[in-house]
């Protein structure tokens, strides 16, 4: 970057609340800006002590150091939270997936049981979901990404606790991943929407191996069992599997272009009859 060139400022000073999707998206946006301007953008940290504390508990600052220039927050960000299932974790290699699965073993079972009312064995299926979504980054994005998961109370929106899993990468997106193998059959219909439909609904993958393409399909099945929601956004499109309690449209096109992909999973607390 030439001397005197201006850096992009991500002004988060007035941020009052942020969820895992927001934090991970901030890292993605910062990465895109860094690539475009040839150097790390600046990040103005939130003035709210609560938000700074939450970002600290989610290990946001550790991840953000590689993306942004910012003044390190004080010690007020230290501490741990009983609602954090998985702090923000960079995923770039298979070893990172192992680390993610290892890290959630300790507390995920307790949080899934106490906040969502899931059986203690649900930690296995939860870990499998995390493993498969993280592998999606490595195998299809060919670029790094981040994952985070947290439980919180959706008191107004749903009247119960949810766990949110957010995974984003700065890779080539679903259209880019599937283009060589599958674009021809779609001819001029090929685009972000058809690529997402191919992967999400039909389990297509760029690999010829018939054992591939199961990950997203099985995640969808497990999320449905838990009456959860899953959406994937890539390029200008977003596709989702939407439960009755959610009014998100299952397919949207014409969104602002998103490099890479974003997978968002929401798992709600069980409703006891």
């Amino acid at each position: 970057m030439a001397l005197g060139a201006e850096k992009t400022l991500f002004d988060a000073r007035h941020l009052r609340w942020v969820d895992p999707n927001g934090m991970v998206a901030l890292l993605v946006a910062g990465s895109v800006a860094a690539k475009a301007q040839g150097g790390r953008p600046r990040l103005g940290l939130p003035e709210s002590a609560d938000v700074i504390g939450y970002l600290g508990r989610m290990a946001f600052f550790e991840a953000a150091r590689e993306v942004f220039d910012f003044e390190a927050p004080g010690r007020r960000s230290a501490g741990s939270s009983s609602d954090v299932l998985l702090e923000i974790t960079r995923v770039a290699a298979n070893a990172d997936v192992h680390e993610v699965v290892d890290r959630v073993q300790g507390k995920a079972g307790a949080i899934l049981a106490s906040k969502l009312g899931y059986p203690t064995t649900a930690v296995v299926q939860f870990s499998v979901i995390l493993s498969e979504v993280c592998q999606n980054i490595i195998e299809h994005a060919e670029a790094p990404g981040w994952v985070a998961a947290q439980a919180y109370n959706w008191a107004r929106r749903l009247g119960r606790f949810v766990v949110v899993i957010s995974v984003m990468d700065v890779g080539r997106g679903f259209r880019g991943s599937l283009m060589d193998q599958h674009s021809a059959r779609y001819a001029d219909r090929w685009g972000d929407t058809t690529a997402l439909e191919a992967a999400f609904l039909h389990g297509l993958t760029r690999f010829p191996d018939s054992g591939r393409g199961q990950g997203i399909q099985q995640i969808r099945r497990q999320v449905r069992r838990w009456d959860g929601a899953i959406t994937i956004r890539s390029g200008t499109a977003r596709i989702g599997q939407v439960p009755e309690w959610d009014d998100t449209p299952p397919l949207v096109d014409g969104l602002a272009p998103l490099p890479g992909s974003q997978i968002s999973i929401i798992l709600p607390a069980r409703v006891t009859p």
Partner: protein
Amino acid sequence: MTDLPIDPIAIDVGKLLNKTVTSLYSHLVTRPTGRAVRMAIATQLQSAGEQSLSLIDLSEVVIIDFSCADEVVAKLLQEYQDNEVHDAFFVFRGVHEPHRDQIEVVLVRQGLAAVVETDPGNFQLLGVHSDREDRVWGVLEARGMLAIDEIDSVFDDLEDRKTLESLVHRGLAFRSLISGRIHSLSRLVEHLM
């Protein structure tokens, strides 16, 4: 078991995982990890001769994802299904409820079936199989072994006898080349458990 030309071997996937990949990895997750474990199993089978029977023990594995299940179970079975040099049979132990779904999904996807131990001493056919295959396999499982002269009396229906042949062909039952007896796989690995 004097009519058996094979000596069943036990392969502890939990230990293999630590030895093969790295001691830091304690879960059977990611495709490269599964591939490495499958290759380690194949290496062990290389010295087993033309026929082998392996008890693949998943008891110590806490997490197995779909990618790993595809490599360690489905691709392992596929590798030996049409192998004309090596006739390999497998029993999967420790397929408890948390693992069952992942393993069943990858078996069904590839049109395969396997003999699995779901609870201590409780064996099942998992994957793609007909009701008749399940019933015939259950009879063999209960008896442990069928001599040649017992088969017609136990299965008086021709279709049942064909199904028994199919189970042998699919690697879900073992026929001794010496005596012609047909053995349930679980009984053959009983002493390893």
